[in-house]
């Protein structure tokens, strides 16, 4: 895994997979994986009469596999105001789009981003940005500055032949629509081909590197495999803060791991949706869990690891556990 910033010309070569052997396109693999997930969805026992489908996305999958009780607690708490990290990430989606089509960035992207968000159809983001206090706005601005200051120098203009797609929606229905897998990947280039894997999927992140990032990449690779009946060529993450690109060639093992993870997630989410009692799995995020006060296992876990209780942490999907924690 490369950990150095990638020069623009090298980045194009990396995304194209220059020098790498492209796996053979394997429609049978896609069929096997779909069958596996259809079985998982069918076994999940989603009741069609309740008309409530099980919706799986990157965040709900991650959260239910970390700790079911934590997921339930967050859902019960309802949506809180988005964190600076989350807003900065959404702003960077817009900034990245500008850079990707060769547009010069304004000196202060955050100053113009509310207007850009409205043009982009992101009315909610525009409203959220307008509602920021000066201090909150500065927090978002600091992250955006850190991520965008070198982006225009680092990110190349991809050739037309790359067939670049930004914010690519991915959606898979299982069990006749009772289970829906959905996601949106920041960048897709290339195309599925007859004999060789073709597409490269890149998740662009404004946050720091996390262990979960490879799991997110596997999730996107799985969705792409199911929708195009062929696995993509490469999948990975581009880190805006330091210009590092992590890509992995997709093989059957990667898809298999992702499918097993999703199958497990479907079963858990279906069970919770049917009202079952949530399992508790103590983990590194316990200190920030809204259910901690009532969770003996979580409190024991925190005490055993010697983490001090602090004020309530405004946890959301962009939470970054301390270095080394999972």
């Amino acid at each position, binding site marked *: 895994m490369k950990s150095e910033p990638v020069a623009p010309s090298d980045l194009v070569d990396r995304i194209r997979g220059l020098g790498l052997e492209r796996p053979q*396109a394997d*429609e049978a693999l*896609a069929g096997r994986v779909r069958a596996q997930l259809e079985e998982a969805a069918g076994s999940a026992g989603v009741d069609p009469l309740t008309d409530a489908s099980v919706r799986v996305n990157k965040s709900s999958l991650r959260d239910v596999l970390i700790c079911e009780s934590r997921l339930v607690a967050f859902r019960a708490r309802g949506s809180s105001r988005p964190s600076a990290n989350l807003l900065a990430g959404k702003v960077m989606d*817009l900034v990245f*789009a*500008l850079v*990707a*089509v*060769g*547009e*010069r960035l*304004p000196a202060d992207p955050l100053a*113009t981003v509310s*207007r*850009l968000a*409205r*043009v*982009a*159809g992101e009315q909610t983001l525009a409203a959220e940005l307008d509602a920021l206090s000066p201090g909150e706005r500065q927090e978002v601005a600091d992250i955006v500055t850190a991520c965008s200051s070198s982006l225009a120098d680092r990110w190349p203009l991809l*050739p*037309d*032949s790359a*067939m*670049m*797609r*930004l*914010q*690519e*929606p*991915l*959606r*898979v*229905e299982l069990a006749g629509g009772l289970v829906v897998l959905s996601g949106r990947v920041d960048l897709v280039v290339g*195309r*599925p*081909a*007859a*004999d060789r894997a*073709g597409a490269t999927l890149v998740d662009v992140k404004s946050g720091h590197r996390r262990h979960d990032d490879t799991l997110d990449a596997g999730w996107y690779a799985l969705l792409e495999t*199911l*929708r*195009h*009946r*062929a696995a993509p060529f490469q999948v990975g993450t581009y880190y805006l803060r330091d210009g590092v690109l992590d890509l992995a060639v997709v093989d059957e093992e990667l898809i298999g791991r992702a499918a097993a993870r999703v199958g497990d997630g479907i079963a858990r989410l279906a069970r919770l949706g049917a009202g079952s009692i949530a399992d508790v799995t103590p983990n590194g995020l316990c200190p920030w869990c809204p259910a901690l006060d009532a969770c003996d296992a979580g409190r024991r876990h925190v005490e055993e690891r010697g983490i001090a209780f602090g004020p309530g942490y405004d946890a959301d999907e962009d939470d970054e556990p301390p270095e080394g924690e999972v």
Partner: protein
Amino acid sequence: MTELGAHQAAVRDAVLEGLALTPSVGTFELGQLKIRLARSLRPRAAGQDGPGVEIHLDSFRLPTALRRSETGPREAFEWNAPRAARSLGLPAVATLWRNPGVGLGSAVEGSVQSAVSDAKSLGLWLAELDSPERAMVVAQARSWAARAWLAVPWSSFERVQFRADAVWFRPLGPGTPMVMRARRDATVRTRGPRGVEHVLVTLGPPDPSVARFNALVVGLVSGRAPLRTVVVDPSSGSIEVADVGADLLHRAVEEAVRAISWISGLETGRSSGRSGANTDDLGWD
């Protein structure tokens, strides 16, 4: 022919495989459908209040109207990048099909310039944007065009007509207040024994009622029923195929009448348990 990936091959087969040579619904039957549609809607039109009140039914509004989930009149339309993406992206796809040597970026830029030159609603909006805002629009249009280009193996078909504009049909005649607006992103043309036949290809989420609606309107306007409708959803890869026959068009008429009746009740501020339209006279003689 370039070899296709699994999904593209499936789309090509969906368009061409087992295709009938001629429409199973002839010109006379289309005429009968037109009469029945008008007869069913006329009682509702008679109750419209005031001049200039138009009832528009399009492929976006049809599903919500059938579910009766609309709660009031629609908001005024405003352009933004997602709404402009298809209007700019589809002409770019047409350019790519006609001129394989033209790149995606140039094709989309050509669409933008063309829209600005036309100086219609979209062009006027584009002309007001500053450079970053226009770049945002271009980014989404390029993504839409790339998605559309890859979702369907357009180069597999000899004759394709791309159309971003809607097909308008006034079931009660010119100048009357009810309008049905169909959408078909492309028409794949094939040569049959009696002339050119067509397959409607639309990009978007599958909805059988919308596919039926589009086939009905296109057939009524052109006087020739399409052979088939194919809906390809780029985000999921789903492919929905329907051969166009009498049953399909008959059902489309029923659904259009139900939807228009519901919408007209909303638009005129009246809610009614009865549709007000004559839905009895919809069967074939």
